[in-house]
C-alpha cells in the first residue's frame, strides 16, 4: 500500500509543484529510484499503478531527451522497473509503451548549433539502455522477439537507425557506439529486422568503422552474406559492401577499428566451417603493382608487424576462430613466412610488458590450434614437428604456463561473462578479449593439452612417423590406404544399409497394408458366412419345403414296409427250413428201417438157400454172414 500512496503523490503533486518546486519531484524520483532498484514485486506494483504513463507524461512535458535531469531520473526509474523483470517487460510491450520511445530520437533541427549538452548525452544514454533492457539477450526468447517486432512496427528501429545514419550531424562517439550496440540488439536473431537494416545501410563514405559491431547480431545467412561480399565477383566494382567495409577496418590505422573489425569478421565464422574455407578465397591487394595476398596471409603478416596490442589481439582472435576446426586454413597459415617463428618467439619469451601475457597466451593458443587441426600437408610443420617444436624450443611447462595466462587474466573472466560489448568512450582501449573467443578458448584449451600429451607419448614410444624406417613407412602408408579403403567401404555399406533400411520400411509398410487387407477380407468372409447361414435358415423356413420332402418320405415308408416283409419272409423261410430238416430226418429214419428190413429178409433168403444146398459166394459186402457161416 505504501507504494501506491507514493505513486499517488507523484501523480497528484506533479501539477502542483511543476512550476514552483521541481525539487520535490526530484526528491520523489530519487526515492523511487532507490525503491525500484532491487525488489521485483515493488517494481510490478509500481508498473501496475500506471508508472509508465506517468513517467512518459513527465518526459514529454519536460521536452523528451532535451529535458533536464528530471527526464534522466524518469528514465532511470523506467530502467529499474524493466531490468530483469520479464513480467514488466511484457507489460511494457503489451501496453504500447515502445511506441512512446520513438519521439526520443528526434534530433532538433538546430542540433548543430546548440550541440549536445551533457544532460542530453546522459538522457540519450538512458533511453538506449531502456531499449537494450527490453531486448537483452538474457531475456526469454519470446519476449525478445515480441519486443523486436513491436520496435519495428512502431518505427523505433527506424528512429534509432536514423541516428546512426545522421550524416553531417555531429553525434558524440560514445552515443554512436552505444546506438550501434542498441541497433545490434534490436535486430539480433531477427531476420525481418535484419532485412530492414540491410536495406537501410548504405552510407556513401564508410563512416565509423566500429559499425561492424552490428555483425554481432547476425545469423548464419548474414554470415554468408558478409563473406559473399568479399569473394571475387565477375562483375566490376559493386560499390561498397559490408565485407569491404570490414576489411578496410581490419587494416586501418586505428587500433579500435581493427579490433572491432576482426571480432566482427570472426563472428561470421562461428561454427561455420564452410565460411572458413570460403574466406580463404579472399585475396586483397596491399599495394598497387604488388601481387595480391590472401586475407589470412595478410592477417598473419600484419600481427608480426604492428606494435599495437589491441590490434594484435583482435587479429589473433580472428585467426583463432578461423584456424579452429579448419585444416585448410592451418595449412595456409603455416606457409606464411615467419608466422611460426613469431609465435614461437612470443610463446617462449620470459618477460612481458603490461597485458602482453595475453598476447603470448594467444600466440601459444594459435600454436596449439596448428597442432590440433593439422592435416600434415606442410612438411616442415606437421603435427609431430610442431609438437617437437613446442617441447624442445618452448618447453612444455612454459607452453602450458603461457596458455594458462589467458584464462587467468581478469580481462578474460570479464569478457567471458559479457556477450554484450559495453563500451564507454574513455574505456575503449580496455577492449582486449571478446566473449565468443573466450567460448572457443574454453572448449579448445583442453583439446590442445591432450593433443600435445598424445604426441609426446607417441614420440616416447618411438612410434612417430619420423622415427620409422623407410620400409616401415611404406608399410604404414599401405595400412593407411587399407584403412582409407575400408573407410570408404564402410560408408558405402552404411549407405546401402540405409537404403535397405528404407526398403525394409517400405516393405513392412506394404506388409502392414496387406495384413490390413487380409483382415478386412477375413472380416468380409466371416460376414458373408454369417449371412449365408442366416440365409439358409430363412430358406429352410420357406413354405415350399414339405412338397420337396414328400417322395423321400414315401420311399422311406415303402422301405419300412419292405423291411417288415423281409423279416416275415425270413421267419417263414426259417420255419420251412426246420420242416425240411425234420422231414429229411424222417426220411433217413425210414430209409434205415427199410434197409434193415431188407437185410433181414436177405439174410433169411440166404439161409434158406444154404439150406437148400446152394453155395453162395462170399460177398464182401456180406461179411457177417460169411463169418457166421464159416464157423
Amino acid at each position, binding site marked *: *500500500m505504501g*507504494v*501506491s500512496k507514493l505513486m499517488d503523490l507523484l501523480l497528484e503533486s506533479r501539477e502542483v509543484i511543476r512550476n514552483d518546486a521541481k525539487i520535490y519531484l526530484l526528491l520523489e524520483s530519487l526515492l523511487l529510484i532507490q525503491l525500484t532498484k532491487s525488489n*521485483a*514485486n515493488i517494481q*510490478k*506494483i509500481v508498473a*501496475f*499503478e*500506471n508508472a509508465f*504513463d506517468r513517467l*512518459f*507524461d513527465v518526459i*514529454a*512535458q519536460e521536452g523528451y531527451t532535451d529535458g533536464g535531469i528530471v527526464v534522466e531520473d524518469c528514465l532511470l526509474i523506467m530502467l529499474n522497473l524493466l531490468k530483469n523483470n520479464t*513480467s*514488466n517487460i*511484457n*507489460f511494457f510491450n*503489451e*501496453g*504500447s509503451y515502445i*511506441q*512512446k520511445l*520513438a*519521439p526520443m*530520437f*528526434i*534530433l*532538433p*533541427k538546430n*542540433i548543430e548549433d546548440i550541440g549536445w549538452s551533457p544532460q542530453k548525452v546522459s538522457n540519450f544514454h538512458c533511453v538506449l539502455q531502456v531499449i537494450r533492457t527490453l531486448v537483452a539477450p538474457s531475456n526469454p526468447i519470446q519476449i525478445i522477439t515480441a519486443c523486436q517486432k513491436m520496435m519495428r*512496427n*512502431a*518505427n*523505433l528501429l*527506424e*528512429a534509432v537507425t*536514423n*541516428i546512426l*545514419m*545522421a*550524416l553531417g*550531424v555531429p553525434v558524440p562517439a560514445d552515443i554512436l557506439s552505444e546506438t550501434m550496440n542498441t541497433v545490434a540488439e534490436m535486430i539480433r536473431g531477427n531476420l525481418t529486422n535484419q532485412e530492414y537494416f540491410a536495406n537501410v545501410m548504405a552510407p556513401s563514405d564508410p563512416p565509423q568503422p566500429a559499425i561492424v559491431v552490428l555483425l554481432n547480431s547476425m545469423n548464419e545467412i548474414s554470415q554468408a552474406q558478409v563473406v559473399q561480399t568479399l569473394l571475387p565477383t565477375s562483375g566490376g566494382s559493386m560499390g561498397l559492401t559490408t565485407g569491404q567495409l570490414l576489411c578496410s577496418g581490419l587494416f586501418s590505422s586505428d587500433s579500435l577499428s581493427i579490433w572491432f573489425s576482426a571480432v566482427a569478421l570472426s563472428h561470421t565464422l562461428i561454427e561455420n566451417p564452410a565460411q572458413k574455407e570460403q574466406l580463404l578465397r579472399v585475396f586483397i591487394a596491399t599495394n598497387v603493382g604488388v601481387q595480391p595476398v590472401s586475407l589470412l596471409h595478410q592477417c598473419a603478416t600484419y600481427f608480426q608487424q604492428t606494435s599495437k596490442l589491441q590490434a594484435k589481439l583482435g587479429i589473433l582472435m580472428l585467426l583463432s576462430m578461423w584456424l579452429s576446426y579448419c585444416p585448410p586454413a592451418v595449412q595456409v597459415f603455416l606457409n606464411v613466412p615467419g608466422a611460426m617463428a613469431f609465435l614461437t618467439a612470443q610463446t617462449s619469451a620470459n618477460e612481458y610488458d603490461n597485458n602482453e601475457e595475453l598476447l603470448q597466451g594467444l600466440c601459444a593458443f594459435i600454436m596449439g590450434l596448428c597442432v590440433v587441426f593439422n592435416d600434415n600437408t606442410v612438411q616442415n610443420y606437421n603435427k609431430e614437428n610442431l609438437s617437437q617444436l613446442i617441447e624442445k624450443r618452448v618447453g612444455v611447462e612454459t607452453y602450458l604456463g603461457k596458455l594458462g595466462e589467458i584464462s587467468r587474466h581478469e580481462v578474460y573472466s570479464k569478457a567471458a561473462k559479457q556477450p554484450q560489448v559495453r563500451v564507454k568512450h574513455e574505456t575503449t582501449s580496455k577492449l582486449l578479449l571478446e566473449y565468443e573467443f573466450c567460448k572457443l578458448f574454453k572448449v579448445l584449451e583442453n583439446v590442445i593439452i591432450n593433443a600435445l600429451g598424445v604426441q609426446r607419448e607417441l614420440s616416447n614410444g618411438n612410434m612417430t612417423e619420423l622415427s620409422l624406417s623407410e620400409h616401415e613407412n611404406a608399410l604404414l602408408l599401405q595400412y593407411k590406404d587399407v584403412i582409407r579403403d575400408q573407410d570408404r567401404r564402410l560408408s558405402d555399406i552404411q549407405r546401402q544399409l540405409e537404403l535397405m533400411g528404407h526398403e525394409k520400411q517400405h516393405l513392412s509398410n506394404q506388409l502392414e497394408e496387406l495384413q490390413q487387407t487380409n483382415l478386412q477380407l477375413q472380416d468380409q468372409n466371416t460376414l458373408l458366412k454369417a449371412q449365408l447361414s442366416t440365409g439358409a435358415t430363412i430358406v429352410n423356413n420357406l413354405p415350399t419345403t414339405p412338397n420337396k420332402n414328400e417322395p423321400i418320405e414315401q420311399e422311406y415308408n415303402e422301405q419300412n414296409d419292405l423291411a417288415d416283409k423281409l423279416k416275415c419272409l425270413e421267419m417263414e423261410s426259417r420255419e420251412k427250413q426246420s420242416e425240411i430238416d425234420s422231414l429229411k430226418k424222417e426220411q433217413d429214419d425210414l430209409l434205415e428201417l427199410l434197409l434193415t428190413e431188407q437185410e433181414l429178409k436177405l439174410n433169411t433168403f440166404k439161409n434158406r438157400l444154404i439150406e437148400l444146398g446152394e453155395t453162395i459166394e462170399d460177398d464182401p459186402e456180406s461179411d457177417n454172414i460169411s463169418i457166421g457161416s464159416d464157423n
Partner: protein
Amino acid sequence: MSYAYLFKYIIIGDTGVGKSCLLLQFTDKRFQPVHDLTIGVEFGARMITIEGKQIKLQIWDTAGQEAFRSITRSYYRGAAGALLVYDITRRETFNHLTTWLDDARQHSNSNMVIMLIGNKSDLESRREVKKEEGEAFAREHGLVFMETSAKTAANVEEAFINTAKEIFEKIQEGVFDINNEANGIKIGPQHSPTNPSLPGAGGQGGSQGGGCC
C-alpha cells in the same frame, strides 16, 4: 495493435484453484498440468472484441498463498474486473470466498466487476461443491457466476469476455469514470480526444524527424 478500451483485471482466490492455468489457457491456449506456484504476481494480456470494438485485457494473476496477501491487495484498487476463483473439488476454497470478497470489496473501487468462477469442472467425479451452491453464492453477493475448466478450456473465454461485457455495459451506462485511470480502464489512443504522447506512433512512417539524408 490499437484498441478502443483497455481493461485491467486481477485474478484472485486460494492457492491451487487454477488461476494461473486459467490465464494461460486464455492467453496461450495451453494447459499446465503441474502446479507452478505463483510468486507475487504475473502479468498477461490479450485482445478481444466486443460489439465490434477491440478491447485490450491486461490481466494480473496473483498468488493465492497467504504469504503474498499484502502484495495482492496492492492490485485491487486499480482493477476494473476481478475473477474470484474457487476449486469445485475442494470445499474449503469455496468456504474462503467470503474472506476474499470482503478483502476485494474493501480495497477495490466500488464499481469493480467481480466474476465468480468454480474451476476444474472437468473433475466431475471429485466434485465437492454443487453448481447450485456457486449460483446461490453469486446471487446473494451480486456476482456473475460460471463454472470453468482450465484443462478443457470450457467456459474460459466466456469468463474473461463476459466480465469485459459487464464492464463495457457499465461504461455505457456511465457508471464508470473512464477518465480516471485508477478505475482500471483506459481509452485507446485513437479514441482519446487529446493525447500528448503520440507524435511518433500515429502515422505510419511519417515520423522520421531530422537527421536523415
